[in-house]
């Protein structure tokens, strides 16, 4: 019998840790009042209209089906328009093992996506390679594209996927509309060799 049912101190996610969301460097003027208001309205709109691109390769994709289906219904968050066209989607959900053979494809899809774009790595394989510490598996997709949120689990329960999705929503809601033009963001992309 287990001693307790819950782990009551799972690690809290610090939004300041998110890539590119850290404090602006000194000397950069903050946005004006109007821009801030606009940012928050746009953020609110964006976070409620995240259209996912399911890059589902294996087990996690099956669990994503469960997330989309009636029992969990991701559409409640305004994101049931699942698209396979990178141009139209906002959120790249990488679910499942990404082998080294697949990595260039993934990168290509990411490059084709229109800004602003977010990436969520669902499951152990996509986030870190999981049990597949083998010659053919990419040890985490953050080696080829920047990742905004990692969801652990193999595969994560639908609740966990939704939890990750809500983390993305928090991130999207707080993002300044100017972030995608910032030097910081460009530097981030450059570090992945993406122009």
């Amino acid at each position: 019998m287990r001693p307790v049912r819950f782990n009551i101190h799972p690690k809290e996610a610090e939004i300041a840790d998110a890539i590119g969301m850290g404090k602006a460097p000194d000397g950069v003027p903050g946005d004006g009042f109007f821009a801030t208001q606009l940012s928050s309205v746009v953020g609110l709109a964006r976070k409620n209209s995240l259209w996912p691109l399911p890059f589902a390769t294996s087990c996690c994709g099956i669990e994503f089906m469960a997330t989309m289906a009636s029992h969990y219904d991701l559409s409640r968050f305004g994101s049931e328009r699942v698209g396979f066209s990178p141009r139209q989607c906002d959120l790249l959900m990488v679910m499942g093992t990404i082998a080294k053979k697949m990595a260039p494809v993934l990168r290509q899809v990411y490059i084709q996506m229109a800004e602003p774009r977010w990436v969520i790595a669902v499951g152990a394989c996509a986030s870190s390679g999981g049990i597949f510490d083998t010659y053919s598996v990419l040890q985490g997709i953050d080696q080829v594209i920047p990742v905004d949120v990692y969801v652990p689990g193999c595969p994560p329960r639908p609740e966990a996927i939704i939890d990750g999705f809500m983390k993305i929503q928090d991130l999207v809601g707080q993002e300044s509309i100017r972030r995608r033009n910032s030097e910081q963001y460009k530097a981030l992309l450059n570090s992945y060799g993406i122009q």
Partner: protein
Amino acid sequence: MQPLTNKAQAVSRDPMTFWERLYLINIIKGMLITFSHMFKKQPTTRYPEEKRAFSPVFRGLHVLNRDEEGRERCTACGLCAVACPAEAITMEAAEREVGEEHLYREEKYAAKYEINMLRCIFCGLCEEACPKDAIYLSETFAPANYTRKGFIYGKPDLLIPNPMTEASDLALARGVEA
């Protein structure tokens, strides 16, 4: 192809009847089925607000057990790390010093005990492997995070509340209120 066994049974593959050829009958039938679903109870769990009860054996985040006096049970034997197919567990053993008896149950203890939740596949083999009643999985699923470093769970994150000093937290963890 003659049948290989006596259990074969052909599926029915009747040609379409006249009414079926008309498309409409079966389309309307299908539409009535979907229409009837409008009045069906939705099975949806509206997740952040509603939560579904997990099974008592659900394999979620790990916890490290203490005994009744609040001493850590882990003795750093390393069986869990060996059993882990994902090689997600890292630990460093240390000898218990004099005066630490109230902290650690055995003479050896894990000075560092880290689980990389991003590697972990929640297979439950560590729980099975533990000979000291020290590591368990819990019904909490592992939460998402923004960085990789947020997934290295050390001892403070894993240990259950001390029954001597944090009794209320322990009750919470036991699920009395939840």
